[in-house]
């Protein structure tokens, strides 16, 4: 049995973590936590960290003892410098909370790259864990909508850079801009994205600790994640009724099934495909055909098959990327945003128009 640590940093990380805990109850509804048990195959410890207590209070499926509030007003206001300072002041408390939960075989840190607490806490937290422990740590980073503003874009750019420099074992990207195709209002879109990410994480955790017909384990996952540029994404698809396994594999690798927009046949470096379902659906020929097709482009493909009686086929694919054109686009936009912010600040310092208005009444007294 694997010992797995999942940390959700900031509002986005907290919510995805809560979605993971909710999904672990089997998606039975709001009352499931009162009568059901989380179906983790491994020993999974989840920790939600936030400087905004209200964000922690919103969580429904994460136990109170697993919610760590780092008091600092009501958040760090998307200011990563403040966030880093707050983490530095509280890192021993945070690490103690983590280490009290025992030793782990692998850790995932979920965060938004654009926010305040998550984007500023995650790099130093991963660095601290990597310095103290030898288990692999993977960051699951959520990229913002491009129109969310210049501060979020520059935070994203610097956050990703900072995470890569911590010695993290891999970054799994989920792009809100790409996933907003799910539609609906803002809240339901966010919830759908969170649920989608949570479902993939749970599938992955389940796969890493299951008996398989064809084996993929944590070692394989490490190998896959160590390939390429250290950037990865996850694809997933659950077959509709009577949909063949071949189509299911294809759809898990298609843009509709991925968390981050990429052409896997062009940009992927290594891959792992995990197939789960009733054996009646699992045609070895079809599976081999599709895996061979992918490996012809990617190079090496780890595949695992989990037989579950009566289940329709589901396919999870983990793909590390050699390059990511979408990420390059993101950085181009982020650089523009950083420049724009810098110019704005310079103008304010030069003009000081507001100060001039106030200076007009210097030396005068009110008359009554």
């Amino acid at each position, binding site marked *: 049995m694997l010992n797995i640590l999942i940390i959700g940093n900031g509002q986005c990380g907290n919510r995805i973590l809560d979605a993971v805990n909710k999904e672990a109850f089997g998606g039975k509804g709001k009352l499931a*936590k*009162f009568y059901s048990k989380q179906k983790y195959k491994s020993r999974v410890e989840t920790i939600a960290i936030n400087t905004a207590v209200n964000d*922690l*209070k919103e*969580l*429904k*499926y*994460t*136990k*109170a*003892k697993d*919610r760590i509030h780092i008091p600092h007003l009501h958040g760090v206001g998307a200011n990563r410098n403040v966030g880093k300072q707050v983490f530095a002041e509280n890192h021993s408390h945070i690490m103690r909370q983590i280490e009290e939960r025992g030793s782990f075989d692998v850790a995932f840190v979920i965060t938004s790259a654009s926010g305040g607490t998550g984007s500023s806490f995650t790099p130093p937290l991963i660095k601290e864990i990597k310095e103290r422990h030898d288990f692999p740590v993977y960051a699951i980073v959520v990229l913002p909508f491009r129109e969310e503003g210049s501060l979020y874009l520059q935070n994203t750019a610097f956050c990703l850079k900072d995470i890569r420099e911590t010695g993290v074992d891999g970054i799994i990207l989920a792009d809100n801009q790409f996933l907003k195709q799910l539609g609906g209002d803002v809240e339901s879109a966010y919830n759908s994205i969170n649920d989608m990410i949570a479902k993939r994480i749970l599938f992955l955790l389940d796969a890493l600790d299951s008996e398989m017909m064809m084996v993929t384990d944590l070692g394989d996952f490490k190998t896959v994640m160590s390939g390429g540029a250290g950037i990865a994404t996850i694809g997933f698809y659950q077959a509709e009724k009577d949909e063949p396994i071949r189509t299911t594999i294809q759809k898990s690798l298609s843009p509709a099934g991925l968390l981050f927009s990429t052409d896997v046949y062009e940009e992927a470096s290594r891959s792992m495909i995990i197939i789960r379902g009733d054996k009646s659906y699992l045609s070895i020929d079809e599976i081999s055909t599709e895996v061979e097709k992918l490996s012809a482009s990617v190079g090496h493909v780890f595949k695992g098959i989990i037989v579950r009686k009566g289940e329709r086929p589901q396919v999870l694919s983990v793909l590390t990327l050699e390059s990511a054109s979408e990420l390059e686009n993101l950085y181009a936009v982020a650089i523009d945003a950083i420049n724009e912010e810098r110019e704005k600040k310079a103008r304010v310092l030069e003009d000081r128009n507001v100060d001039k208005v106030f200076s007009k009444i210097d030396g005068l007294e009110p008359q009554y």
Partner: protein
Amino acid sequence: MVQTKRMLVLIICIVLLSMMSAGNASAKQILYNSTIEDGDGYQINNYVIDVTDVFVDAETAVFKVYEKDDLKHDKMIGDDKSFSFEIEGEDVEVTLVSVGGGILPRVTVTITISDDDIVHTKGVVDGGHDKASFSGTPILEITKTVSPQEIAVGETARVTVSVTNAGDDDATGVRFSDSIPARFVLQESFVSETGKMSLDIGDSRQIFIYELKATESGTFTLDPTTATFSNEAGGDFPQASSNSPTLTVEGDSLEEAMKEAELQFTISLEPTSVQRTGFIDVKVHIKNTGDAPAEGVSMDILIPDGLEFEEGDDEIEVVGNVPKLYLSSFGLQQEKEISYRVKANSEGTYTITTQYSYQYDNAVDEDLQEVSDELTTTSIQVVKGQYDSLLEQPIYVYAIPLVLIIAIGGWIFYRHRQYRF
């Protein structure tokens, strides 16, 4: 054969003569059979038989019979000779048995009387009739009066009985007898001398004073009051009787004059069959169908175990777990309905008993008449309640779900605490 018949006739005659002589002998009762000295006498009641002269040599003696001081007989008889006279209708026979000499001559006599019941005084009197003590005759005059002599039905008349001893001797052992006449009620007795008493010569005394209430009209003659008595010497005298006064009673009879309050109680139930924990409405209807108003009407409603008094009209007051009702007055032809509600607590068949009482003035008697009785409802059936079967289940039927609920509640609370931040 002829001789045998003569012998038989002779025997029969002898037997008959013997019987006759025996019958005569038994008719005489010997009062005295001994000696009397010369100058002494023998007293029988107010008579004295003096022995005045004794002639020893001639074997004769002179007897003089006095009634008190009056000389009635003067006889000189010899040995084995007798003379007779009457005292109060009874024959007295004096037989000279013998004469004897000595310091004082004496005679031996036998004195008999045909019936000694009349004898109250007897014996030898030293000195003869001059020294004898004689008893008198008490005469009791009993007077019975009634006042007034005319009354109406329901009114009273006072009867007074008095007595005077108009005789020449004290009356002893006097006992009066008086009776209450029919159709009258003894209302009150003031004087009643019913024991034995004595009345000296000339004494007067009130023996009875009482009041009679007339219950019926008519003219009534009261029975005389009688008395039995004796004189000082113990002699009984014929019964004395009073006069018989007449009392006239006018108007209706007492029964006709009498009035009555008659309260009719009726009870109705709704419903008569009810499930346990259900309610029964009880209505008591009271109506005075008599010709007199009632007072102090009280009702005690006796609720049996298994039923419980729930609520009722304001007049009903629960005292010591007993619902009670009190109405100070209840007029002629007045009607009233009392309502109350009882709750059925236990299965079973019940009746509710109401004890009631009231008083009224019957216009005849001085005291108020009291009526008390009870009435009972028809049967009330209390059947099993809708949820009673639940209560009959064994304890584990409740305990297990309860434990489960508590466990689930505890678990939910525990989980809630786990997730509350």
